[in-house]
């Protein structure tokens, strides 16, 4: 059924249709609307049976989900930003134990300084924690990826994180096709856990493993994620047959077949990039897009196949690995040994800074002309940075860095652009 609804509500509907048995809720912007909508669904009886727990922190949210999942219940929670970091210990625990928890991450920057706006720093900081990570381009895909996430998690007994851009998607009202319960029930079978509390075979979950077996356990976690690379495309096909639309998969391409220049990105910025690419194509520029949906496991072979004939690859990423630059771009480079393609890292949109078509078009033109720096910070105000650095050279006690930058740009209200 087509509905004009907020992204958060679309996700809540998808989760409710997936019949979780335990939902853990702790509010944090921009995720709160999702768990609020699920709270209402449980109260109204639309989602039953389901235990809805208001927990005291994100650490508790993930820990409660771990307990529920270990006992054989389908468990769900949602978080963002600092909340995801606060659960870090439990994230590794969930994946190490092979528990098929599904979690939405409404992507948001990490502090300090405090910033509630969108970028991908939160999810990227947890890229190696053993969770499968899927990134949605729009709200329909966010809804669809949740349905696929439960399927994926439970088949492999691995936790899955569905990432959607905070505010840009979570708070945007778009038309989404919400499937019927019967459709979802046919696609997502009843949860048949690989591990349950079984009186016939009592076991202590999470016990110590020494050097004699630890490596094998960790290897199996990796092998399972690699296995997901083989299974995910097939499930996307199955999803298309069941629901009549494309969603999920490892990645998709857009006007990339004969492109000398290919732009790689994840999440909602792909829409802006596609529009920019359309305009450049109209001017005769051979440019296309590779949109990554599955970031963990990293679809190395598929990325290589899509990029191997490009002369240059521009990776737009909403995160910064301090001290090296890009994260996605370094994964792209790992897929392109010997291809001869130049790979550019473009750090963009940190802390909610708008990524405009004009800025993207200029960066793409600079790359084509060989003028783009290998690591570029899109729309960075270099003058402000230089003034702050000059002051640091002059004054030993230069004070907190964020406050120095704010002083340089003068009094502002919250200015997301």
């Amino acid at each position: 059924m087509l509905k004009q609804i907020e992204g958060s509500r679309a996700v809540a509907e998808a989760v409710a249709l997936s019949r979780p048995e335990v939902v853990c809720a702790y509010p944090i912007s921009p995720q709160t609307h999702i768990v609020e909508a699920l709270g209402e669904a449980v109260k109204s009886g639309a989602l039953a049976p389901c235990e809805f727990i208001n927990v005291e922190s994100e650490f508790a949210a993930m820990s409660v989900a771990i307990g529920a999942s270990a006992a054989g219940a389908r468990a769900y929670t949602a978080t963002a930003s600092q909340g995801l970091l606060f659960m870090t210990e439990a994230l590794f625990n969930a994946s190490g134990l092979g528990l098929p928890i599904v979690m939405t991450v409404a992507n948001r920057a990490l502090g300090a300084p405090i910033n509630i706006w969108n970028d991908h720093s939160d999810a990227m900081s947890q890229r190696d924690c053993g969770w499968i990570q899927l990134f949605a381009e729009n709200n329909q895909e966010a809804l669809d990826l949740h349905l696929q996430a439960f399927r994926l998690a439970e088949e492999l007994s691995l936790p899955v994180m569905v990432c959607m851009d905070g505010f840009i998607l979570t708070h945007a009202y778009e038309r989404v096709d919400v499937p019927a319960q019967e459709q979802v029930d046919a696609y997502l079978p009843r949860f048949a856990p690989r591990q349950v509390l079984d009186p016939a075979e009592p076991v202590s979950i999470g016990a110590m493993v020494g050097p004699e077996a630890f490596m094998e356990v960790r290897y199996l976690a990796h092998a399972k994620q690699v296995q997901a690379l083989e299974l995910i495309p097939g499930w996307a096909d199955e999803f298309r047959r069941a629901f009549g639309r494309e969603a999920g998969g490892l990645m998709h391409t857009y006007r990339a077949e004969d492109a000398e220049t290919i732009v790689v990105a994840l999440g909602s910025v792909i829409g802006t990039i596609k529009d920019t690419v359309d305009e450049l194509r109209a001017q005769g520029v051979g440019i296309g897009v590779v949109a990554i949906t599955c970031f963990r496991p990293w679809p190395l072979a598929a990325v290589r196949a899509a990029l191997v004939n490009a002369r240059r690859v521009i990776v737009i990423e909403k995160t910064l690995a301090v001290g090296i630059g890009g994260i996605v771009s370094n994964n792209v480079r790992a897929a392109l040994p010997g291809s001869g393609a130049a790979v550019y890292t473009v750090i963009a949109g940190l802390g909610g800074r708008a990524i405009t078509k004009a800025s993207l078009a200029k960066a793409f033109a600079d790359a084509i002309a060989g003028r783009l720096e290998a690591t570029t910070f899109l729309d960075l105000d270099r003058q402000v940075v230089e003034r702050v650095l000059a002051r640091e050279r002059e004054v030993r006690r230069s004070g907190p860095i964020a406050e120095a930058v704010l002083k340089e740009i003068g009094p502002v209200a919250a200015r997301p652009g």
Partner: protein
Amino acid sequence: MNAPAIAPALTAQDFKSDYKPVWCPGCGDYTVLASITRALAALQLRPEKVAVVSGIGCSSRIPAYTTCYGFHGVHGRALAAATGLKVARPDLTVLVAGGDGDGYSIGGNHFLHACRRNIDLTDIVMDNHVYGMTKGQPSPTTEPDWKSKLSPAGTGLREFHPLVIALAAGANFIARAFSGDPSGTAAVIGEAIRHPGFSFVEVLSPCVTFRPEQRAWKEAVHPASVAATDDPARAARRLMTDDGFNTGVLYKGTRPAYSAAAGKTTLHPADLEKDFAL
């Protein structure tokens, strides 16, 4: 040093920064801010002798609204950050300010251990029984039958009793104030700052946006009928049986405050002042 030998007395206004609070009109936190600045002026402190530490939440914005040193840290960790700050600079008066979310749920464990450690801090919790910044979800002090989007049927959970918990965990000073009584709140905060060890002040501070019914708190509050006791057993009985609206200093303990080992502190105010000499 060119500073005059005797600094002029400061007023509450001298402790207020130029930042305009972004709280909702009618929020109780405005008067808590006013009470804190009045208390600091009355104690003849100076902004550079005070640090205000907070975590995340509406009330946690307070440090920026003062002219004192401010530290706006990670959600729930204000007490831990303040502990580090106080042991590094024992000469500073350290206030911790936050709400019932920061203080009792996500930061609840630090609350227990700050009480137990009994470092000379003053912890001011502006309790409005709701998560205001995330727009109205139940907190640990929310009544079990309060309905919200996140708990449409109420949480069904008994609310926390922070004062009893503070006493059991070892806090050396326990008081309750009401933001609608700025003079009383300023007096309680002043006394809390003066009392050695960990001082806990719970300020009932209405959230008129998400809990408009809390406007009625002004009729519910009443001053404690007896003076503060130093007997934990008597305090426990009183705190367990009061109605939650009993204001004033309720317990003043005699435990010695935690003291940093003499001579171990690396930062001395005199050394710092030397750096600033013109």
